């Protein structure tokens, strides 16, 4: 059995701010509560039916009293509003140097991918003192990534990214929950956030089997989904070659030109007929519903990694990922 804990651990840059806000809210409420309860009890005792106390003149012009307490409460409330709004904007403005960690929610687990390709499920390792931005999405229903010790949470919606950032301030292990009801095992969709010293975190990262990077995995998927059958260099099908495509303009059949960015690549996989590259027959089938959100990420990453390669030197398709991963 647990103890009679009153406050959760305070382990992020938001947490202390939030606790101060909490204190202010409690202070304001306590003042109003004591006022109301105090007066109620006072009146109930003093003016009980059998009490002989003098009633005398009652409050006359009520509108003065009314105006006074209306204005007073409104001003107090406005103060609280601005405080909260300011903090909220802060919670939604990640610093530029935050590390991006990708989180995909799925009934009923959190799949987490570090920039170096390290992967974990239901556990998130982060270094203390470094800002982290989580990029959240979901593969099925709405989930919510909640870390009470950091005082942050954010819904993860299917089909789009939401972000969430924090700077852990205290080494330790904290609970991680799914806060938006997502089905049978909603209560078990969680785990822990492990905050480590930066050096320990480096060691942890290195000790992880980094596995293939996203791009490398994407390459494997590129074959297993059969993409290489048409887009591969050896293919006889007249399909666009993807080397050097990313980030460059692509002329379309309807005369427009689009930049081959993340969106374009993704749409081309899911809705291939929406923007057909000029000079190619619209023969590609749609992969909507067949490729999961995390696989899609990997495919896009792979095609990106082909950006500065030409068709010749990518025969082996050895993605540069492992070599160029940030120094660890």
């Amino acid at each position, binding site marked *: *059995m*647990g*103890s009679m*804990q009153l406050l*959760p651990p305070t382990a992020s840059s938001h947490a202390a701010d*939030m606790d101060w*806000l*909490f204190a202010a*809210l409690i202070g*304001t*409420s306590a003042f*109003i*509560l004591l006022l*109301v*309860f105090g007066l*109620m009890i006072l*009146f*109930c005792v003093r*003016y*009980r039916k059998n009490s002989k106390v003098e*009633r005398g003149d009652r*409050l006359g012009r*009520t*509108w003065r009293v*009314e105006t006074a*307490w*209306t204005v007073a*409460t*409104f001003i107090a*409330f406005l103060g*609280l509003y601005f*405080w*909260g*709004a300011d903090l*909220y*904007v802060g*919670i939604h403005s990640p610093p530029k140097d935050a590390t991006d960690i990708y989180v995909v929610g799925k009934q009923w687990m959190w799949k987490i991918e570090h920039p170096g390709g390290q992967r974990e499920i239901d556990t998130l390792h982060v270094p203390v003192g470094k800002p982290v931005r989580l990029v959240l999405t979901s593969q099925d*229903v*709405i989930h*919510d990534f*909640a870390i009470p*010790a950091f*005082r942050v*949470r*954010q*819904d993860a*919606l*299917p*089909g*789009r990214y939401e972000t969430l950032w924090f700077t852990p301030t205290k080494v330790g292990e904290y*609970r991680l*929950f799914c*806060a*938006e*009801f997502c*089905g049978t095992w*909603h*209560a*078990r969709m969680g785990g822990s956030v492990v905050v480590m010293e930066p050096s320990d975190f480096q060691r942890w990262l290195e000790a992880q089997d980094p596995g293939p990077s996203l791009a490398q995995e994407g390459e494997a998927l590129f074959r297993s989904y059969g993409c290489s059958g048409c887009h591969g260099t050896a293919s006889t099908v007249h399909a666009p070659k993807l080397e050097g495509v990313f980030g460059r303009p692509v002329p379309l059949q309807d005369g427009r030109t689009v930049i081959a960015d993340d969106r374009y690549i993704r749409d081309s996989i899911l809705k291939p007929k929406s923007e057909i590259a000029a000079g190619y027959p619209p023969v590609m089938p749609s992969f909507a*519903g067949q490729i999961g959100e995390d696989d899609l990420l990997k495919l896009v990453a792979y095609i990106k990694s082909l950006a500065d390669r030409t068709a010749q030197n990518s025969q082996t398709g050895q993605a540069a990922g492992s070599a160029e991963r940030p120094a660890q």
Partner: protein
Amino acid sequence: MTTATVTGKPDEPVVATRNYLTEEGVTLRSWLLTKDHKRIAILYTLSITFFFFVGGAAATLIRLNLVTPAGIFTPDIYNRLFTLHGIVMVWFFLIPSIPNTMGNFLIPLMIGAKDLAFPRLNLLSWYLYVGAGFLALFAILIGGVDTGWTFYTPFSSLYSNGYVVLALAAVFAVGFSSILTGLNFIVTIHRMRAPGMTWYRLPVFVWSNYATSVIMVLATPVLAITLMLVAVERLLRVGIFDPALGGDPLLFQHLFWFYSHPAVYIMILPGFGVISEIVPCFARKPLFGYKFVVWSSITIAIIGFFVWAHHMFVAGISLYAGLVFSLLSYVIAVPSAIKVFNWTATLHKGWISFDAPMLYALGFIGLFTIGGLTGLFVANLAFDVHVTDTYFVVAHFHYIMVGGMVSAYFGGLHYWWPKVTGRLYPEWWARIAALLIFFGFNLTFFPQFILGYLGMERRYYSYPPEFQVWNIFSSAGASVLAVGYALPFFYLGWSLFRGKRAGSNPWAATGLEWQTSSPPPAHNFDVTPTVTRPPYQYRPEPEPQDV
């Protein structure tokens, strides 16, 4: 309109032999086909009581499950329990509770009318309610629903394995019951007032039911159409709420909360009305700041529509929308605060007695104040990022809806019990129940604020062990609360047969409903009253009030 419609029989002094309970016959048929608003109110009271105990049973099982961190039930059963609890309590108890029982019974009496404007519509509304109720029970019995009462897409439209469409149909139907009631009240209050009953002579109870009705009429259709869209989406696998189909789940949330936030005010505004009747009566003083109380109700009904997205601060709405909705939420806190101050000020220099209705009313003010103040917490953008979807929110809205609304419901039930039944309830037992409910409630729900801040999430059938202590407090409180809620069922039932005869005005209260006999005759007033004075003209000593 004049007093030309005299039916002319003299009133019996103590026991009204000619009353609505017997006047039109006592057969089942005469009840099931009645058009008398008072009888329909009784029908509603019986059915609502039934659903209150259904929802209460689910709540009991939920609290039982949460005694241990591992939980007792399987997650699927637990998920169905809280969904059942939510759907039944929200749509089959809280929303119709005060309006459809006391509102139905009292509004015509209070404004000096013979009935509501559309009695047949009133009966239809009850049949819709009962039909919807059976549909909901049927969905529960054949396997239940596991979406939560909020039916969030795409979970409800694609992933849930419960009988979602049936539940949606039930809520759809009960929505129409609610719309018809609201329509009836609005038209009645506008068109059926007795001579001299100007707007500022209306009791606050009537005003707050009027405000409630406006919300019912204007918000419920949006819920109905939204739930229909979800049902079609689930049946046909095509729809606008699922991203996989090209839709937007936040569109569902916007539409859902456009109803469901104002619905909170549907639940609480009639409670304000009840308290505004009880407090002056037992303080023997006019209501302090009558016009402010009245206009704060209307303001709440209107601004209540402007704040819905404060349920969505972490759901992915834009930053700007969050700022707007939070500000508006703070604005609506002001009229609520005004009411609390006015009730408190009404006590000043009064002659206060502490009969059971007054105990409930004082309990209401206390619990509602806590609920309202914690509303400031969750309306706060940043703070909501930490506590939304936790037990903090659960505790907050239970303080409003259970601590506030149910206290008001019981307060009103006791206050008007003599009028409705012609008999007095046993005072001692009633006070015991009021105290049990107050303390049991606080024991149940106050720990949940702490749990919420600690990070215990809603809708969890099992939880980390460090949360157990507070959960045990909460469950212990729930058992006290259950006793408190069960008690009135017994002593009120007893009083139906053995209670003392009440007479027409046992509280020496003002208000037209007390001018007619108890129980009132089928057509309410033998002579249509003419009103010459504002409400709540209380004086220290009980004296006969004339009209």
